[in-house]
């Protein structure tokens, strides 16, 4: 469903992605791991073109997003994204945050959008927080609003960029629980994370990145039992 072909990304002279090729299959969960600065966020952001690849193709549902500008928003509509820093709209309540794209992109009526927003926020355990503004919510609550906002669009895939690294351990658990519940519910989940244990628990496939390259795309079980590359072995031994 999502395919990156020979994707490279340079910022000025620094190479951040080097000739990346990968295909994400429908309804699977991928965890992208690797050391800091490896290019994980950049790879994720190339999928919905928040970062424009310097060269290469990003093909989603058969459309090359680097070429077809008109298709960008319709495709983005189908790919949710959850950020490390939540990025909630500061001037909107939790409910309005979820409703916003339903109104502007899905062109729902106020009433339809509100019903959907309440449903999604209830699903992530925030039925009591509908009218609170972001600054009134804890980090974990903010991230759950962000997840509800993405899910309300009924995306085919959802991208998570270190969704818990701005959270303390307790809140991390509440957010991980929500993400875990999304597993195998029909979406492709692509999760950049430093929570190795979580990656092991939730992912079908591990994508291991190092130094602007993908070194491994391996079944989770296999990756943790017998990583193919020395770099991955070293990375895992540093983690434990």
């Amino acid at each position: 469903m999502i395919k990156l072909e020979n994707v490279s990304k340079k910022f000025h002279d620094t190479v951040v992605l080097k000739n990346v090729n990968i295909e994400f299959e429908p309804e699977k969960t991928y965890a992208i791991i690797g050391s800091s600065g490896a290019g994980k966020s950049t790879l994720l952001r190339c999928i919905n073109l928040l970062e424009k690849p310097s060269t290469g193709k990003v093909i989603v549902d058969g459309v090359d997003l680097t070429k077809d500008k008109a298709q960008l928003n319709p495709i983005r509509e189908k790919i949710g994204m959850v950020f490390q820093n939540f990025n909630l709209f500061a001037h909107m309540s939790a409910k309005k945050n979820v409703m916003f794209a339903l109104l502007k992109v899905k062109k729902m009526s106020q009433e339809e959008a509100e019903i959907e927003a309440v449903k999604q926020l209830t699903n992530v355990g925030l039925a009591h927080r509908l009218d609170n503004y972001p600054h009134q919510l804890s980090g974990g609550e903010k991230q759950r609003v962000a997840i509800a906002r993405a899910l309300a669009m009924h995306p085919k895939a959802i991208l998570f960029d270190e969704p818990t690294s701005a959270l303390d351990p307790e809140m991390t658990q509440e957010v991980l629980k929500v993400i875990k519940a999304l597993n195998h519910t029909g979406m492709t989940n692509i999760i950049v994370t430093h929570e190795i244990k979580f990656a092991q628990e939730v992912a079908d496939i591990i994508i291991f990145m190092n130094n602007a390259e993908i070194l491994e795309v391996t079944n989770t079980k296999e990756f943790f039992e017998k990583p193919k590359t020395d770099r991955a072995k070293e990375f895992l031994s540093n983690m434990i």
Partner: protein
Amino acid sequence: MKVNFGAIVEYIPYLLGGILVTLEIAIAAALLGSLLALIFSLLSRKKGILQSAIKVFIDFFRGTPLLFQLAFFHFGIPQITGIIPTPYISALVVFSLNSSAYLAEILRAGIESIDKGQIEAAHALGVKSWDISFSIIIPQALRNVLPAIMNEFITLVKETSVVSMISLTDIMRRQQIVSAATYRFFEPLLVIGIIYLVMNIVLSNIGKILERKLKYD
């Protein structure tokens, strides 16, 4: 000469009448100026010739005295074009352009103060740039710079006093007329000083109410 308000009492309604003229110019210029400023600050989000042209425009209006701008437009330019605008039109054009330059700078700062993450989140949801500008960026930018905008409006009300130079009978011009008729300065000047002060106190309170209305944190 002793202070004697009795001598100017009959002129007070005339002085008060200047409020309408002053407000008319200030409000019209504030509205037109805000609209222009909004357009400028949105257009200059993208680099290019347009951005440079807008910058030159803003620098001109912020870098020269208002009195000069008014004189240049009302007396200078007509020498070349042969079209002499009415004092009202000149005042309106110059004040609108002048305040648009200051407001555009204020808005630009407000837009830059908005966290890029929210804009990215909206893009990631597939929201059109237009909707992002009007529903995410502008409401928050306005909120952030409202005190600076109110300041600019107060400055505008005070600065309209220079239109007396082109014979518009605003508050200031009326004081000059009353002084000429009565040979008194202190009393009419004190009266118009109080008028300006009260107008701006009202304006600044409207600003505070607006700020409270727009508050979300």
